[in-house]
Structure formats: structure tokens, C-alpha cells
């Protein structure tokens, strides 16, 4: 499997990453090598196998829908790079 520059750029856009021209080349080559390794999986027939999404078979637990967190607005906002009047601030979205 070989990944071309256009695909690398597309994946970077999906992943919200900015990649330089050099990175496009190196990621393309490295991802191609890794995907080639992954293709060995195709040697195993798996049509009759059900996918395993989790290590433990368990039902998702349920709980009463009650309020249990106290107001943590200040401590949560304190983690952010930019806040104003109790909100997270980001660059202007609507012109």
C-alpha cells in the first residue's frame, strides 16, 4: 500500500493537523510502510468472525440520573488559554 501526497494532506486535514511539505513526504513513506505491515491481516480468513470491540464482555452499567457534580466553572475555566466572562474565548467565527 502506498500513500500519495494528496492522501496525506487529506488525512492531515481530517485530523486537524498542519503538515509541512517535508512532513508530507516522510509521513507518506512511513504510513505506507506501516500499512504494508497491516496488510498481512488479509491472509487470515475472518468472514465468520464477529468483531471484538472490547476486552471484557460486560453490559454497560446504568445509574440514577442525578446531579452529582458541584459547580466547577472557575476551576475548569482556569485550564483554558483564553476566557472572558465565564466563557471560553476563540477567534471570531462569523464575519
Amino acid at each position, binding site marked *: 500500500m502506498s500513500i500519495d501526497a494528496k492522501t496525506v494532506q487529506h488525512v492531515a486535514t481530517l485530523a*486537524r493537523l498542519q503538515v509541512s511539505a517535508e512532513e508530507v513526504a516522510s509521513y507518506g513513506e512511513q504510513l505506507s510502510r506501516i500499512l504494508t505491515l497491516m496488510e498481512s491481516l488479509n491472509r487470515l480468513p*475472518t468472514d465468520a468472525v464477529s468483531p471484538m470491540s472490547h476486552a471484557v464482555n460486560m453490559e454497560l452499567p446504568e445509574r440514577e440520573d442525578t446531579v452529582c457534580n458541584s459547580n466547577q466553572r472557575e476551576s475548569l475555566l482556569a485550564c483554558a488559554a483564553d476566557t472572558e466572562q465565564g466563557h471560553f474565548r476563540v477567534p471570531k467565527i462569523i464575519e
Partner: protein
Amino acid sequence: MDMSHLSLEDAADHLRKKTFSAVELTRFFLERIARENPRLNAYITVDEAGALAAAQEADLRLARGDATPLTGLPLAVKDLFCTQGLRTTCASRMLQRFCPPYESTVTRRLKEAGAVLLGKTNMDEFAMGSSNETSFFGPVHNPWDLTRTPGGSSGGSATAVAAGLCLAAIGTDTGGSIRQPAALTGITGLKPTYGRVSRYGMIAFASSLDQAGPMTRSVADAALLLQAMAGHDPLDATSIDTPVPAYRERLRPIPQGLQIGIPGEYFAEGLTDPVRRAVEKAMGVFQELGARCIPLSLPCTDYAIPTYYVIAPAEASSNLARYDGVRFGHRCDDPKDLREMYARSRSEGFGAEVKRRIMLGTYVLSSGYYDAYYRKAQKVRRLIADDFHAAFSQVDLLLTPTTPETAFQLGEKNSDPVQMYLSDIFTINVNLAGLPAISLPCGFDEQTLPIGMQLIAPPLREESLLATAHAFQQATDWHLRRPS
């Protein structure tokens, strides 16, 4: 008195007998860290004030006579457990200044059991790596040979334990990140059954694989720490709700006729001779102790690496989508719009290996490739788990090498991600199947580098794993050797 390599029980005993106080013990380690950490780089953050305050508290409890098993014992914690008010970086520029507003369940339980947290240990960035070289804070050095890696991703915890910069440490294991560094530094490392220990407050890498566990100088110490860490937690929906056995009390001699399976695939091409010889000698020790070693096969073993490197990056790319520069973590300067803020903040905040895995995960989950890669890998994951289930219908435990080779040179595998990924070849399968496994020292190569072997058990059989590993340590002294 050299307190650097005391067992947890001996240290607790000294504290009760007042040979030294918890404050003296903590000061001893803080001074040792100040002296040794510059050349080892095991700690990212040392919490001197917090540790001394906890030690004073411990001394009060000791004086009152109501000490718990870990009261006053100085431990180190991998820097991906959220510690309220204490910087938690995940060894990333992204979280360089992140101070969590809440406490992880693991660190909360350790603190409640009386432990003194000395600081946060170095690791591969977001736990992605096998050599500790992807850390934003620089690589950790192996105390057995400073030019070599201690392994990863819990390399800081491993080095801190091996070099006596704490009594014991906590790591996390997604594909071998407790066991591989334990093997490369000559210590004991336990990855519990998936769900045995709460993941609440552990910064997520691959949620269906991540699990926390103890990294210690003996199995007895590991049993004590697991006791404090394990148990159901309503804050983690994947936490298993079954009682926690008394691990330390049940470190009994192994039952006569215990059946230990030896999977041939782990002794094939790629395994170096010194590791093979050491593990074969260990088989002899187990046989002398009354166990039977039975050859068997785990046919899907070779598919574990490709399966893991689809599933883990897929989960990582989803988990790491939360780092958008808005609520916490790094934000770039002067973005011109929101999209640029996301892309630049992420590109500046993440290192090369993290970005590589995000790209890989995004690719295998993207439209048109999901079935070919992600669904396929999930199916092979079941086949790998089925292999283990079939094996455990024949035997009680499995014995394998932990790693194909001893500690490699820093820089040796940096340029080729595939070579680096292959260093986890014997540990990854266990995470995919969600099983408990322990790595413990079983010898040295001709360069005096430690060799580790791995015991694997069926789900929730930590008890049997610990008892068997403890019996081995009662019969051998590999775990008592120290780097000079």
C-alpha cells in the same frame, strides 16, 4: 542507612518501629532524586512540598498507631495520572502547563492508603513509544547503562524503581508499557486484567487497551500496591465489579502440578540467544518448584502487531481529538481563524510520533478504509483472544520472554517506526485479549543487561500470577541485583 532499595513491607516495618520517620524517608528520596535525576531524567515533576506534607501526615498517623499498609511509603507515579493541583503533562508540549482540576482514582486510592507521592515520572509522549525517546522532556536513561533506553512508555517509572529513586512506582500498559520497561531495567511489572483498575483520570491513549499497574522491585511489593489500586469504580464504566482478593496474603507456594504453557511462537526467529537461554533456565526453576511446562501453540501471535497498530492509533486519534486549544492544553499564538487555531495548536503541541499515530488512526477510520482496516483488525483481535482462551483450557498460565532482546541503545530504532513497534511483539497480544500478565527478572546478558520473562494468566487470575512469580523470586535472586 541506605533506604533506597527497601521493600515496601520492610520500609513500613521500619516506620512502625521508628527506625526512621516518614519525613526522614521522604527527605532521603528527595535528596537522592536531586542528586541522580539530572543524569537519569526519570522525573518530570518532583513535588517536594506535597511529599513532605504527606509524610508529616503519615508520621502523625504512625504516632497514633492507625497506619494503613502504605502509610508513609514514597512512591512515584507516571505523569499521565491526573493529580489535582499538580502539573500533569503526559510528557507532551500540549499539556506542558496543565494542572488537573481533579484527581485520578488510582492516585486518590494510593493517597488514601497513606502513600507519599514523590512526583510524576517521565514517559513517552501520550504513552506512545517503546523507548521513552518521544518525551517532550527528553529521554530517560537506563541505570544499567546510561547510553541505553529503559524501554517505554513507562520508562521514567522503571528507571526510578531500578535506580532507587522511589520505593515503587505506578505505570500504565497499552501494548506493553509496564512490562517491556520492567524487563529492560530488571524490575517487576504487572499489567492487571482490563477493568481491574479504574482508568478514571488516566489520560486516555487507547481506551479499550489502557490499564494501570504497579512497577516494583519484587512481586510481594506488586501485590501490596495492586491491593490498594484495584477494585470497582463507578466513575469508570469499564471497571469490573468483582471483589478484590487479598493478593499479599495469598502469595503461597505454587500448587504441585501447576501447568505452565510454553507457546512456541514466542521462541521463534527474532528472539536473541541470551533471552532464550534465560527463559529456558527459568522453566527449569518452575519445574523444580513442582510445575509442569507444556509446549503449545498460539497460532495468531504474528498478527498482533498489525492488529494493534490499527486499533490503538484508531482509538488514539479519536481520544486526542479533544486537544483543540479551547478548553485546556496548548493554544497557538494569534490564530487568524478557528480552523487555523485547531490545526496549529495541535501541530505545535504534539510531537512527531503522536502525530504519526493520529494520522494513521484517522486514515484507518476514514471513509472507504474502515472495513478494510479497522473492522478487519477487530475481527483478528477476536481470533487472538480465542487463541488464549483455547490455551487456558489446557494450562493454568503461560510463560514467554517479555522482550526479544535486552535494552537497546538510545537512538537505535528512532528512524524506523516499524522497528520500534516490533519491540513490543511479545506484550501486545495480552492487551488485545485484556489479560493480566507480569514481567519479572530472570537473568542477565553478557553485558550485564537485565532479561525479563512474562507470565500470562486468564482474566482476573492476578492471584495465581502473583503467587507463581513470587515463588520464582523466593527461589532466585535476579530481582535483588542492583545497577552500580
